[in-house]
């Protein structure tokens, strides 16, 4: 296969799948979140209307994105925010680092932002001697373990309470426990000191309102708010697709987001920020990093509607069993298997194949992204670009040729059946070992359907 190193989802998933007890537990954990989402959605008779509206609002916004970006920039500036634009991850990191260094900041608290994960912000800042503490409990845990988050909403879903306890004891000398209540209390006390000592806060943005220049940040823990309320510098980072036209559109999105993500009617805190606090600076960084390319692609433009709720990964049978780390990208699951290959087809060539095309993702997406048709389309594109295994491509061409020659096809079938029936069981097992991992081969019929039909006596 063509050149460079690429991430092989199936290969990464193999050791994960070998631990069947853990896989079953992970699967059940994610499915439980999906079930909560269903319960919350079913309590609202207007659920499908909300999805239609959300999809329409996002599609409209994307089709008019330059206008809304300009409107947002002007409105945010009028409220005292400084607005920056970054073409790519490197520029985003440089802007954030520049803001911090010019103000002598060495202690930063950060709340959840998949955008900053995408840009690799933390390692960039740490290399410059800036301490960045991820304050979302799940992200805090994986940060201590030097792991990436495995889910965009539930970063530590792959960990058991004993793992968390072990980490807190090993890294922070916490008293040994695996009780979630006590572990959370420990984190509360530890992070409280970080919030109080912080010189800057970096947050993500769930929705940016073009009409008012405001940014909306949703959390359950209040960690983003503690960051925004305390230090004198707040940097809000977002992808350009996070815009919505008007404040009233939040009625639709805020009703869909938490229900889709965790089955709650709303997150504990839905904060609307329109300019800095008194005595504070607010900087907003709008990032492209491949989004304008995606926007130019008619088949995949709708992936920009994504509001990063995680519902697709909660329902995906492949994600539920293989876990987020198998994907090798900051946003895993169905939407990640579109976004990552669109950014870097070679590196993420296996992701559209990490899919059973069950279409469950498309059913739960609150903004009606056509996930599974896009995944199928990506398979075609990757095959055309010769980024799929040669054996697969050659096999498909060969099969196509054979199927186009019926007499030869039937002769091969006859020969194959004759041969296989005469092979020893152990030889057959060796031949089909790869195919039979997790599958049972069908029974070999004595004759083909074609032969049976030709010689049938009892049908008219």
């Amino acid at each position, binding site marked *: 296969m063509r050149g460079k190193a690429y991430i092989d989802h199936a290969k990464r998933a193999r050791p994960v799948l070998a631990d069947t007890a853990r896989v079953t537990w992970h699967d059940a954990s994610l499915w439980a979140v999906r079930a909560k989402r269903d319960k919350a959605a079913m309590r609202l008779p207007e659920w499908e209307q909300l999805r239609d509206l959300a999809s329409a609002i996002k599609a*409209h916004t994307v089709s008019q994105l330059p206008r809304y*970006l300009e409107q947002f920039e002007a409105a945010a500036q009028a409220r005292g925010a400084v607005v920056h634009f970054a073409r790519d991850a490197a520029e985003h990191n440089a802007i954030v680092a520049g803001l911090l260094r010019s103000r002598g900041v060495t202690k930063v608290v950060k709340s959840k932002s998949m955008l900053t994960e995408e840009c690799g912000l933390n390692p960039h800042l740490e290399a410059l001697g800036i301490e960045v503490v991820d304050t979302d409990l799940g992200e805090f845990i994986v940060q201590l373990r030097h792991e990436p988050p495995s889910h965009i909403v539930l*970063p530590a879903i792959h960990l058991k309470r004993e793992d968390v306890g072990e980490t807190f004891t090993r890294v922070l000398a916490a008293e040994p426990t695996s009780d979630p209540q006590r572990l959370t209390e420990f984190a509360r006390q530890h992070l409280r000191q970080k919030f109080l000592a912080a010189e800057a806060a970096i947050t993500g943005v769930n929705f940016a309102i073009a009409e008012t220049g405001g940014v909306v940040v949703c959390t359950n823990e209040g960690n983003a708010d503690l960051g925004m*309320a305390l230090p004198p510098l707040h940097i809000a980072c977002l992808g350009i697709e996070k815009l919505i036209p008007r404040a009233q559109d939040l009625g639709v999105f805020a009703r869909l987001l938490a229900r889709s993500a965790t089955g709650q009617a709303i997150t504990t805190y839905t904060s609307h920020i329109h300019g800095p606090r008194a005595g504070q600076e607010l900087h907003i960084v709008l990032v492209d990093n491949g989004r304008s390319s995606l926007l130019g692609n008619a088949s995949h433009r709708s992936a920009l509607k994504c509001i990063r709720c995680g519902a697709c990964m909660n329902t995906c049978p492949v994600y539920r069993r293989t876990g987020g780390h198998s994907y090798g990208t900051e946003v895993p699951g169905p939407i990640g298997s579109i976004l990552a290959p669109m950014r870097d087809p070679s590196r993420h060539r296996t992701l559209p194949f990490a899919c059973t095309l069950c279409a469950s993702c498309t059913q739960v997406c609150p903004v009606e992204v056509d996930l599974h048709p896009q995944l199928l389309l990506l398979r075609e594109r990757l095959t055309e670009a010769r980024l799929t295994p040669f054996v697969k491509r050659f096999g498909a061409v060969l099969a196509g040729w054979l199927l186009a020659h019926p007499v030869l096809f039937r002769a091969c079938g006859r020969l194959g059946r004759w041969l296989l029936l005469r092979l020893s069981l152990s030889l057959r097992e060796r031949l089909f070992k790869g195919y039979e991992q997790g599958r049972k081969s069908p029974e070999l019929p004595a004759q083909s359907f074609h032969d049976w039909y030709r010689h049938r006596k009892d049908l008219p």
Partner: protein
Amino acid sequence: MNSRDAILGALKQRLRHVPEAPLLELEGDWVSYPDLKEQFIAAAGELPATVVESLGSWVETVEGLELYRNSKQILSLVEGVGGNCAALNKPRAAASLDLAIARGQLGVAESGAIWVSGKGLGQRSALFLAQHLLLVLHRTELVPHLHAAYERLDVTEDAFGCFIAGPSKTADIEQALVVGAHGPRSLTIVLHD
């Protein structure tokens, strides 16, 4: 060319032949509740928040609560209820608060969320650093859902405004719900006339 112009230029260029997707009217068969107050109390209870209905003097109700009587440092941002510490001169000063009391402007029945505007709030850090939070809300300021809320609210009237739906919480450790993550450990709502 600077990044702003490069990005906007790239977007305009790629959208040259893309028609504007229609923006639909924000209307639908939104859920309605026969008794807004009952629904609000039920939803708030699930958060979990404690709802106390005040029938007489709400000030007396607040000051009579065990939470109020047992709190050592109370900051009251509501006229009528006394705290026992002066207004905060800086955000970090809220760190020693046991209880913060603030007024909500609007309650959303579908979720139990309460809109708290930054206007007149002073240091918003009190809402998040205090160990416990108490919100006072007029019974008449209840709406069924967020669409109604956004129709009534001006989210730009202050640099800060927040829908607060319950105490701080997390389920990041094995999906086990823990109430009181980084923010307040409890939320008490006093509903009054």
